[in-house]
Protein backbone atom coordinates (compact mmCIF):
# COMPACT_ATOMS: atom_id res chain seq x y z
CA UNK A 1 0.00 0.00 0.00
CA UNK A 2 2.78 2.33 0.98
CA UNK A 3 4.56 1.57 -2.28
CA UNK A 4 1.52 2.56 -4.28
CA UNK A 5 1.29 5.90 -2.49
CA UNK A 6 4.93 6.58 -3.13
CA UNK A 7 4.63 5.61 -6.76
CA UNK A 8 1.69 7.95 -7.24
CA UNK A 9 3.34 10.86 -5.51
CA UNK A 10 6.47 10.73 -7.64
CA UNK A 11 4.75 11.54 -10.91
CA UNK A 12 2.32 14.13 -9.63
CA UNK A 13 2.88 17.78 -10.36
CA UNK A 14 1.11 20.36 -8.26
CA UNK A 15 -1.14 22.54 -10.39
CA UNK A 16 -2.54 24.79 -7.69
CA UNK A 17 -3.05 24.70 -3.97
CA UNK A 18 -4.72 26.71 -1.26
CA UNK A 19 -4.77 26.15 2.50
CA UNK A 20 -7.93 24.08 2.05
CA UNK A 21 -6.82 21.76 -0.72
CA UNK A 22 -4.76 21.08 -3.81
CA UNK A 23 -4.94 19.82 -7.37
CA UNK A 24 -2.18 17.66 -8.86
CA UNK A 25 -1.67 16.54 -12.43
CA UNK A 26 -0.50 13.13 -13.51
CA UNK A 27 1.09 13.27 -16.96
CA UNK A 28 1.36 9.50 -17.27
CA UNK A 29 -2.29 8.88 -16.39
CA UNK A 30 -3.49 12.06 -18.15
CA UNK A 31 -5.66 13.00 -15.23
CA UNK A 32 -5.87 15.20 -12.16
CA UNK A 33 -5.96 14.35 -8.49
CA UNK A 34 -8.12 16.67 -6.44
CA UNK A 35 -7.26 16.76 -2.75
CA UNK A 36 -10.23 18.38 -1.09
CA UNK A 37 -12.78 17.82 1.71
CA UNK A 38 -10.69 15.07 3.25
CA UNK A 39 -10.24 12.89 0.20
CA UNK A 40 -8.09 12.49 -2.86
CA UNK A 41 -10.21 12.01 -5.97
CA UNK A 42 -9.09 11.22 -9.50
CA UNK A 43 -10.65 13.08 -12.43
CA UNK A 44 -10.06 12.63 -16.14
CA UNK A 45 -10.46 15.43 -18.69
CA UNK A 46 -14.25 15.08 -19.16
CA UNK A 47 -14.94 14.70 -15.46
CA UNK A 48 -12.87 17.64 -14.27
CA UNK A 49 -14.77 19.84 -16.72
CA UNK A 50 -18.04 18.46 -15.34
CA UNK A 51 -16.80 19.14 -11.80
CA UNK A 52 -15.89 22.72 -12.77
CA UNK A 53 -19.31 23.24 -14.33
CA UNK A 54 -21.12 21.80 -11.31
CA UNK A 55 -19.22 23.94 -8.79
CA UNK A 56 -19.38 27.14 -10.86
CA UNK A 57 -23.13 26.64 -11.31
CA UNK A 58 -23.82 26.85 -7.56
CA UNK A 59 -25.33 30.22 -6.74
CA UNK A 60 -23.38 31.17 -3.61
CA UNK A 61 -25.22 34.47 -3.19
CA UNK A 62 -28.57 32.72 -3.30
CA UNK A 63 -27.51 30.29 -0.54
CA UNK A 64 -26.22 33.18 1.57
CA UNK A 65 -29.48 35.08 1.28
CA UNK A 66 -31.67 32.04 1.73
CA UNK A 67 -33.19 32.21 5.21
CA UNK A 68 -35.12 28.94 5.11
CA UNK A 69 -34.34 26.28 7.70
CA UNK A 70 -32.96 23.77 5.23
CA UNK A 71 -29.49 22.34 5.78
CA UNK A 72 -26.74 24.54 4.41
CA UNK A 73 -25.14 21.78 2.38
CA UNK A 74 -24.91 21.16 -1.31
CA UNK A 75 -24.53 17.71 -2.83
CA UNK A 76 -22.32 17.75 -5.87
CA UNK A 77 -22.89 14.66 -7.95
CA UNK A 78 -21.09 14.25 -11.24
CA UNK A 79 -22.64 12.00 -13.84
CA UNK A 80 -20.55 8.92 -14.76
CA UNK A 81 -17.98 9.78 -12.13
CA UNK A 82 -17.40 7.75 -8.98
CA UNK A 83 -16.99 10.77 -6.73
CA UNK A 84 -19.58 12.80 -4.94
CA UNK A 85 -19.12 15.78 -2.65
CA UNK A 86 -21.30 16.93 0.20
CA UNK A 87 -20.16 20.49 0.83
CA UNK A 88 -21.04 23.24 3.24
CA UNK A 89 -21.22 26.81 1.99
CA UNK A 90 -17.70 27.62 3.20
CA UNK A 91 -16.38 24.51 1.49
CA UNK A 92 -18.10 25.49 -1.75
CA UNK A 93 -16.40 28.89 -1.66
CA UNK A 94 -13.01 27.27 -0.99
CA UNK A 95 -13.56 24.63 -3.67
CA UNK A 96 -14.48 27.26 -6.23
CA UNK A 97 -11.35 29.24 -5.34
CA UNK A 98 -9.25 26.10 -5.74
CA UNK A 99 -10.76 25.22 -9.11
CA UNK A 100 -10.52 28.79 -10.42
CA UNK A 101 -6.84 28.85 -9.53
CA UNK A 102 -6.37 25.44 -11.12
CA UNK A 103 -7.88 26.45 -14.44
CA UNK A 104 -5.90 29.68 -14.53
CA UNK A 105 -2.73 27.62 -13.99
CA UNK A 106 -3.74 25.15 -16.71
CA UNK A 107 -4.28 28.06 -19.11
CA UNK A 108 -0.91 29.45 -18.14
CA UNK A 109 0.63 26.04 -18.78
CA UNK A 110 -0.92 26.08 -22.24
CA UNK A 111 0.56 29.53 -22.95
CA UNK A 112 3.97 28.31 -21.78
CA UNK A 113 3.77 25.23 -23.99
CA UNK A 114 2.79 27.41 -26.95
CA UNK A 115 5.66 29.83 -26.36
CA UNK A 116 8.37 27.30 -25.51
CA UNK A 117 7.67 24.35 -27.76
CA UNK A 118 4.96 25.03 -30.32
CA UNK A 119 5.72 28.41 -31.78
CA UNK A 120 9.08 28.59 -33.51
CA UNK A 121 11.30 31.13 -31.81
Amino acid at each position, binding site marked *: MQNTTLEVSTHL*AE*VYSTVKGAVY*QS*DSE*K*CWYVDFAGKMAKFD*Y*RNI*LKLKKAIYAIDIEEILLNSSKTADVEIVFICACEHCYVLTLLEIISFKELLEGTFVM*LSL*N*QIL*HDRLYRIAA
Partner: protein
Amino acid sequence: MKDIIRVKSLISADVETLLNQQIKKEAQSSSAYLSMASWCDRNGFDNSAEYFFKQAEEERQHQMKFFRYVLDMGGTALSPEITNVKIEYNSFREIFEEALDQEISVTQSIKNIAARCHKEQDYVTVEFLNWFFKEQREEEYKARRALELFDLIGEEGTGRWEIDKHVGKIHYGNEAGE
Protein backbone atom coordinates in the same frame (compact mmCIF):
# COMPACT_ATOMS: atom_id res chain seq x y z
CA MET B 1 3.74 19.27 -16.91
CA LYS B 2 1.88 18.19 -20.03
CA ASP B 3 -0.76 20.39 -21.58
CA ILE B 4 -3.59 17.82 -21.34
CA ILE B 5 -6.42 20.26 -22.04
CA ARG B 6 -4.97 21.35 -25.39
CA VAL B 7 -4.29 17.73 -26.33
CA LYS B 8 -7.95 16.89 -25.73
CA SER B 9 -9.58 19.91 -27.34
CA LEU B 10 -8.71 22.36 -30.07
CA ILE B 11 -11.17 25.01 -28.98
CA SER B 12 -11.07 26.91 -25.68
CA ALA B 13 -13.81 26.63 -23.06
CA ASP B 14 -15.00 30.15 -23.92
CA VAL B 15 -15.29 29.46 -27.64
CA GLU B 16 -17.02 26.16 -26.87
CA THR B 17 -19.61 27.99 -24.75
CA LEU B 18 -20.22 30.54 -27.52
CA LEU B 19 -20.58 27.78 -30.12
CA ASN B 20 -23.07 25.98 -27.90
CA GLN B 21 -25.05 29.20 -27.56
CA GLN B 22 -25.04 29.46 -31.34
CA ILE B 23 -26.32 25.87 -31.64
CA LYS B 24 -29.27 26.93 -29.50
CA LYS B 25 -29.79 30.09 -31.53
CA GLU B 26 -29.91 28.14 -34.79
CA ALA B 27 -32.36 25.67 -33.25
CA GLN B 28 -34.56 28.56 -32.09
CA SER B 29 -34.42 30.04 -35.58
CA SER B 30 -35.42 26.73 -37.11
CA SER B 31 -38.39 26.40 -34.75
CA ALA B 32 -39.46 29.99 -35.39
CA TYR B 33 -39.37 29.44 -39.16
CA LEU B 34 -41.43 26.28 -38.76
CA SER B 35 -43.97 28.26 -36.78
CA MET B 36 -44.03 30.94 -39.51
CA ALA B 37 -44.57 28.21 -42.12
CA SER B 38 -47.49 26.92 -40.08
CA TRP B 39 -49.09 30.37 -39.85
CA CYS B 40 -48.65 31.03 -43.58
CA ASP B 41 -50.12 27.66 -44.48
CA ARG B 42 -53.11 28.20 -42.15
CA ASN B 43 -53.79 31.55 -43.72
CA GLY B 44 -53.53 30.47 -47.33
CA PHE B 45 -50.05 31.77 -48.19
CA ASP B 46 -48.79 28.58 -49.79
CA ASN B 47 -45.61 29.90 -51.38
CA SER B 48 -44.52 31.68 -48.22
CA ALA B 49 -45.22 28.54 -46.20
CA GLU B 50 -42.97 26.62 -48.56
CA TYR B 51 -40.29 29.34 -48.30
CA PHE B 52 -40.33 29.11 -44.48
CA PHE B 53 -40.30 25.30 -44.50
CA LYS B 54 -37.11 25.53 -46.54
CA GLN B 55 -35.65 28.15 -44.19
CA ALA B 56 -36.45 25.94 -41.16
CA GLU B 57 -34.59 23.09 -42.81
CA GLU B 58 -31.60 25.31 -43.57
CA GLU B 59 -31.37 26.57 -39.99
CA ARG B 60 -31.45 22.99 -38.78
CA GLN B 61 -28.52 22.20 -41.10
CA HIS B 62 -26.63 25.19 -39.70
CA GLN B 63 -27.27 23.92 -36.18
CA MET B 64 -25.90 20.49 -37.11
CA LYS B 65 -22.83 22.05 -38.72
CA PHE B 66 -22.00 23.84 -35.45
CA PHE B 67 -22.86 20.73 -33.44
CA ARG B 68 -20.51 18.48 -35.39
CA TYR B 69 -17.74 21.07 -35.36
CA VAL B 70 -17.78 21.29 -31.54
CA LEU B 71 -17.60 17.49 -31.32
CA ASP B 72 -14.92 17.19 -34.00
CA MET B 73 -12.73 19.66 -32.12
CA GLY B 74 -12.97 17.66 -28.90
CA GLY B 75 -15.64 19.74 -27.21
CA THR B 76 -19.01 18.85 -25.70
CA ALA B 77 -21.91 19.77 -27.97
CA LEU B 78 -25.13 20.39 -26.09
CA SER B 79 -28.52 19.50 -27.54
CA PRO B 80 -30.60 22.59 -26.79
CA GLU B 81 -34.03 22.90 -25.26
CA ILE B 82 -36.35 25.15 -27.23
CA THR B 83 -39.34 26.69 -25.49
CA ASN B 84 -41.76 29.58 -26.00
CA VAL B 85 -42.11 29.24 -29.73
CA LYS B 86 -44.52 31.84 -31.06
CA ILE B 87 -47.69 30.45 -32.63
CA GLU B 88 -49.72 33.47 -33.69
CA TYR B 89 -48.66 36.53 -35.66
CA ASN B 90 -50.57 39.78 -36.09
CA SER B 91 -50.07 40.12 -39.83
CA PHE B 92 -48.44 38.66 -42.92
CA ARG B 93 -45.96 41.52 -42.93
CA GLU B 94 -45.02 40.99 -39.28
CA ILE B 95 -43.76 37.51 -40.13
CA PHE B 96 -41.27 38.85 -42.67
CA GLU B 97 -40.19 41.61 -40.30
CA GLU B 98 -39.45 39.00 -37.64
CA ALA B 99 -37.66 36.78 -40.14
CA LEU B 100 -35.28 39.64 -41.03
CA ASP B 101 -34.74 40.52 -37.35
CA GLN B 102 -33.88 36.92 -36.69
CA GLU B 103 -31.32 36.77 -39.50
CA ILE B 104 -29.70 40.02 -38.34
CA SER B 105 -29.47 38.62 -34.84
CA VAL B 106 -27.82 35.42 -36.14
CA THR B 107 -25.28 37.42 -38.17
CA GLN B 108 -24.40 39.60 -35.17
CA SER B 109 -24.05 36.57 -32.95
CA ILE B 110 -21.64 34.83 -35.36
CA LYS B 111 -19.65 38.08 -35.64
CA ASN B 112 -19.35 38.05 -31.88
CA ILE B 113 -17.92 34.51 -31.91
CA ALA B 114 -15.44 35.50 -34.63
CA ALA B 115 -14.34 38.51 -32.54
CA ARG B 116 -13.63 36.22 -29.61
CA CYS B 117 -11.73 33.79 -31.89
CA HIS B 118 -9.56 36.60 -33.25
CA LYS B 119 -8.82 37.70 -29.70
CA GLU B 120 -7.45 34.28 -28.77
CA GLN B 121 -6.00 33.64 -32.23
CA ASP B 122 -8.28 30.69 -32.92
CA TYR B 123 -8.04 30.97 -36.70
CA VAL B 124 -9.25 27.41 -37.14
CA THR B 125 -12.69 28.39 -35.87
CA VAL B 126 -12.55 31.69 -37.78
CA GLU B 127 -12.06 29.69 -40.98
CA PHE B 128 -15.02 27.47 -40.04
CA LEU B 129 -17.16 30.56 -39.40
CA ASN B 130 -16.36 32.06 -42.80
CA TRP B 131 -18.81 29.64 -44.44
CA PHE B 132 -21.54 31.04 -42.20
CA PHE B 133 -20.70 34.63 -43.06
CA LYS B 134 -21.23 33.89 -46.72
CA GLU B 135 -24.45 32.09 -45.87
CA GLN B 136 -25.69 35.04 -43.79
CA ARG B 137 -25.11 37.35 -46.75
CA GLU B 138 -27.67 35.29 -48.63
CA GLU B 139 -30.06 34.87 -45.70
CA GLU B 140 -30.22 38.58 -44.92
CA TYR B 141 -30.54 39.45 -48.61
CA LYS B 142 -33.50 37.09 -49.04
CA ALA B 143 -35.26 38.29 -45.88
CA ARG B 144 -34.75 41.94 -46.87
CA ARG B 145 -35.97 41.36 -50.43
CA ALA B 146 -39.10 39.61 -49.13
CA LEU B 147 -39.90 42.55 -46.89
CA GLU B 148 -39.34 44.98 -49.74
CA LEU B 149 -42.09 43.25 -51.71
CA PHE B 150 -44.60 44.70 -49.24
CA ASP B 151 -43.53 48.23 -50.15
CA LEU B 152 -43.25 47.54 -53.86
CA ILE B 153 -46.53 45.71 -54.38
CA GLY B 154 -48.60 47.05 -51.50
CA GLU B 155 -51.04 45.01 -49.44
CA GLU B 156 -54.28 46.42 -50.86
CA GLY B 157 -56.62 44.34 -53.01
CA THR B 158 -54.84 41.26 -54.26
CA GLY B 159 -51.51 42.66 -53.00
CA ARG B 160 -50.86 39.98 -50.40
CA TRP B 161 -51.64 37.25 -52.94
CA GLU B 162 -49.20 38.87 -55.34
CA ILE B 163 -46.53 39.14 -52.61
CA ASP B 164 -46.95 35.47 -51.76
CA LYS B 165 -46.53 34.60 -55.42
CA HIS B 166 -43.20 36.43 -55.57
CA VAL B 167 -41.72 35.23 -52.28
CA GLY B 168 -40.89 31.85 -53.79
CA LYS B 169 -38.96 33.51 -56.61
CA ILE B 170 -36.45 35.36 -54.46
CA HIS B 171 -33.01 34.20 -55.43
CA TYR B 172 -29.49 35.18 -54.50
CA GLY B 173 -26.61 34.45 -56.88
CA ASN B 174 -23.33 33.10 -55.61
CA GLU B 175 -21.56 36.37 -56.12
CA ALA B 176 -22.69 39.79 -55.02
CA GLY B 177 -24.42 41.75 -57.75
CA GLU B 178 -25.75 38.75 -59.66
